[in-house]
């Protein structure tokens, strides 16, 4: 259990001016489950690898438990990492895979046996101890990778997209396992993923990254409800937030041909209205506008309807209850829940309101 | 942690060790024998380029070179075609004796040449193919066939079945599929075997020395060996002769080094 603090951590690769990681600052508290979320190439894995010591730090400070560890080699940082590809030692049995790190640290043999067997039991690996990795299924290998980290009893756990190589059903199951594990161990965990569902369900806090920079940091619901910019708004949530261009005029906001009672904010007349599919209702009582149905996706528990709004460039997605019935081509009245909507500056993409 | 500098030195020394002898021959090829006797390791003062035409015309190198060229090119062409056909068949058709037949050909890679060479000698003499370039070419094809089939078969096997199924559904006959689907896709592997076989056969000595004794039919390796025997002390001319033998290989290597390295090492990485 430890704190991890990143101060303006930067990574520049030798033959380019591009900053893979740009002045990332982050403070992970004791026992917190911190998720680094972002699209491919946003720098989250690089950041994690810098914390692990597998990549050198170009600038900035990395502190583990208050101690600056920039120059400390990986093996001395008291961290354990679960790799995306599991990285099990192919020529060793499951038992040896789990025991290897401990043997390298001169821990007494019976202590090693004790820890390995107990961790194996927790993860349901007891019967597989003699097998080699190639004789294990994906899920089993993943658990061995996990076990290898747990058995080390490190200060910090690092996860590099550990669930992305698993099939969907297994992924859901493992997500639950990891959450339970976190509660049981109470350890500090830093978890990298591009899957926003994982981030929302597992993280105590989410750090959203894009283009090497930290875009927003906060608890899952905070980030969901108050996105810092259009990127976060569209990245979190499925289906993504509708982003509509609008213009302020005298009485309110004009979006397409719809006229919305929104107070003017920010400079300039142009603005981007962000509204989530669940915040638009099919409601004839006091509609803001009418939309033409383009497609209906009944998902069982709910229905997603795709609309074309007059004079609006992009399709608008609306999430409705399963009772929704609409035909393609129909014109349907829509009401916006403007209290939950956001306004974004069209140039900086940051949220204004 | 061993320092980078030390490793670099080790590497540099080994490079001198590996490439040094060739450099030495190259320099000697441009010096006259008398110059060489004075100092074996000096850099050539004047570059005696005339030694090359000398070796070529006066010492029959042109004959040896042409013979080698003829034999190697013909052998490689036929070998590649025949080998590709067999490899394609092994890789793409399922029939009960497939693996058995493949093993029969593949196992020949281990055979020591002695087990075939005496009888080959007898056979070629019997059919009047002794001391003939045709006879040697045929033998060369047989000698390199197992390796060629081995390399090509594993490549053909990796081509996705969908391509063949699509061609079949389109009604293409089997030969057409081989010619228009398998071969073009396997071109990299074929190029590799061509380069590999060319170099191996260009350098081949044992079969040549047994099956050819006629001066006019000698291949380059035989020619060099005879040269060495004839003029043991004419180091300068021998060196020039060696360069004539080495240069084609070097040229192929310069252009195809990656391919060549890949091809020769392909079977070895597990």
């Amino acid at each position, binding site marked *: 259990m430890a704190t991890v603090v990143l101060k303006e951590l930067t990574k520049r690769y030798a033959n380019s001016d591009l900053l893979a990681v740009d002045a990332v600052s982050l403070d992970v508290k004791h026992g917190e489950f911190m998720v680094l979320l972002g699209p491919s190439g946003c720098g989250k894995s690089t950041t994690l690898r810098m914390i692990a010591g597998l990549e050198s730090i170009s600038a900035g400070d990395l502190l583990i438990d208050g101690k600056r560890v920039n120059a400390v080699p990986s093996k001395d940082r008291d961290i354990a990492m679960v790799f995306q590809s599991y990285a099990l030692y192919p020529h060793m049995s499951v038992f040896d895979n789990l025991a290897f790190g401990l043997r390298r640290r001169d821990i007494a043999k019976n202590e090693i046996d004790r820890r390995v067997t107990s961790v194996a039991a927790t993860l349901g690996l007891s019967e597989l101890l003699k097998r080699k*990795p190639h004789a294990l299924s994906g899920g089993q290998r993943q658990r061995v990778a996990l076990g290898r980290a747990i058995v080390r009893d490190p200060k910090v756990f690092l996860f590099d997209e550990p669930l992305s190589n698993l099939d969907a059903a297994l992924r859901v199951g493992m997500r639950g396992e990891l959450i339970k594990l976190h509660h049981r161990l109470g350890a500090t965990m830093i978890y990298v993923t591009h899957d926003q569902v994982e981030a929302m369900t597992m993280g105590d806090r989410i750090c959203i990254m894009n283009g090497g920079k930290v875009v927003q940091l906060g608890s899952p619901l905070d980030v969901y409800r108050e996105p810092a910019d259009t990127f976060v708004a569209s990245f979190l949530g499925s289906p993504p937030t509708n982003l509509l261009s609008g213009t302020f005029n005298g009485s309110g906001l004009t979006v397409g041909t719809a006229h919305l009672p929104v107070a003017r904010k920010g400079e300039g007349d142009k603005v981007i209205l962000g509204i989530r599919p669940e915040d638009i209702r099919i409601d004839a009582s006091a509609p803001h506008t009418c939309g033409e149905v383009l497609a209906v996706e009944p998902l069982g528990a709910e229905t997603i309807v795709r609309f074309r709004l007059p004079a609006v460039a992009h399709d608008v997605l609306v999430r409705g209850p399963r009772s929704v019935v609409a035909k393609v081509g129909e014109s349907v009245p829509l009401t916006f829940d403007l209290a939950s909507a956001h306004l974004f500056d069209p140039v900086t993409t940051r949220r204004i309101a | 942690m061993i320092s*980078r500098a030390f490793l670099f030195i080790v590497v540099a020394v080994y490079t001198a060790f590996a490439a040094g002898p060739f450099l030495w021959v190259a320099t000697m090829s441009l010096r006259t024998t008398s110059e060489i006797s004075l100092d074996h390791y000096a850099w050539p003062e004047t570059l005696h380029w005339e030694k090359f035409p000398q070796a070529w015309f006066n010492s029959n190198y042109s004959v040896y070179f042409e013979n080698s060229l003829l034999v190697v090119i013909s052998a490689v062409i036929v070998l590649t075609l025949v080998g590709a056909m067999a490899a394609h068949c092994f890789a793409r058709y399922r029939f009960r004796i497939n693996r058995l037949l493949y093993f029969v050909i593949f196992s020949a890679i281990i055979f020591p040449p002695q087990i075939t060479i005496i009888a080959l000698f007898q056979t070629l003499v019997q059919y009047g193919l002794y001391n003939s370039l045709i006879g040697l070419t045929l033998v060369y094809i047989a000698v390199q066939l197992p390796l060629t089939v081995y390399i090509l078969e594993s490549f053909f096997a990796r081509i996705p079945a969908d391509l063949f199924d699509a061609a079949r559904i389109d009604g293409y006959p089997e030969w057409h599929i081989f010619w228009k689907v398998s071969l073009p896709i396997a071109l990299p592997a074929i190029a590799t075997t061509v380069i590999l076989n060319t170099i191996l056969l260009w350098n081949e000595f044992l079969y040549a020395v047994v099956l050819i004794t006629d001066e006019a039919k000698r291949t380059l390796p035989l020619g060099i060996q005879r040269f060495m025997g004839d003029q043991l002390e004419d180091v300068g001319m021998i060196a020039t002769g060696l360069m004539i033998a080495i240069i084609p290989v070097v040229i192929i290597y310069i252009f195809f080094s990656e391919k060549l390295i890949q091809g020769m090492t392909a079977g070895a990485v*597990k």
Partner: protein
Amino acid sequence: MARALPLLSAERQPWGAIIAFLLPAFTIYTALTAYPVFRTLWNSFHTVLPRKEEFIGLANYVTLAQDEIFWRSVKNTFIWACASPLAEVSIALLLALALYAKIPGMRFFRIAWFTPVLMSYVVVGIIWVWIYNYDWGAANAILRALGLERFVQAWIGDPKIALPSLIFITTWMWTGFNMVVLLAALHSLPSEVIEAAELDNCGWGAKLWHIIIPLVKPTLLNLLVLSFIGKMKIFDLVWITTKGGPLWSTETVSTYTYKRAFEWTSFDLGYPSTIAAVWFVIVLVAVLTLTWLFRQRDRLEY
């Protein structure tokens, strides 16, 4: 690697095509490989003279069992086939590890080290005869230049060191090849596994011993077997340098067979065929034994 064989309806195979594809290869194979093997075996039970063949049963084999030169040549060949691979592969491993540590100019070195393998044994043989020349060869010249006069030898003229001198040549030739293969194998190792080892408190030495070498073991063994097979066949090099001398110290089975067949007082091809047949069996047994010894018990999948 899955074998992608097409699924044709039922077992209706295009036999015409199959036969057409295989015929040329098998014709050549049968005529020039299979048939000669059997003919050589046939020969071994006969005295085979230019105009006469006479059946003599196992007489050749009995003679062979007592043929001192043959057994000497077998011993020489085996020494060669065991010593050279070990030297070639271990030196190659060290060099590959050195390059693996990312020395600049790697591509150039790789190409330079591979060169000896491309040259004809004839060319290599002549060059090394010169290097080993007592008076002016590079070997002795260097020794003299370093003040190590007393180590100057007649490298291929002295029966006691001729064989090691030749083994040195094949090591020189093939180390570069093995090095290139090992380098490729090292680069194909999954980097995350090695990183995991780093996190598991492994320094360079530990990583090498516990992780890297075990993972390239299949390739190492493979190279040893390939090299072994190659040395069992060796002829060209010996023929150019020492022709089996001095005093049969470098006589290999291949040179001895050649001499008995084509450079002996009698023209009998039966006896050399016997040598070939016995050698064939010896080689096969040796290779099968090695392969069995080195077989991988589990697939090292990664």
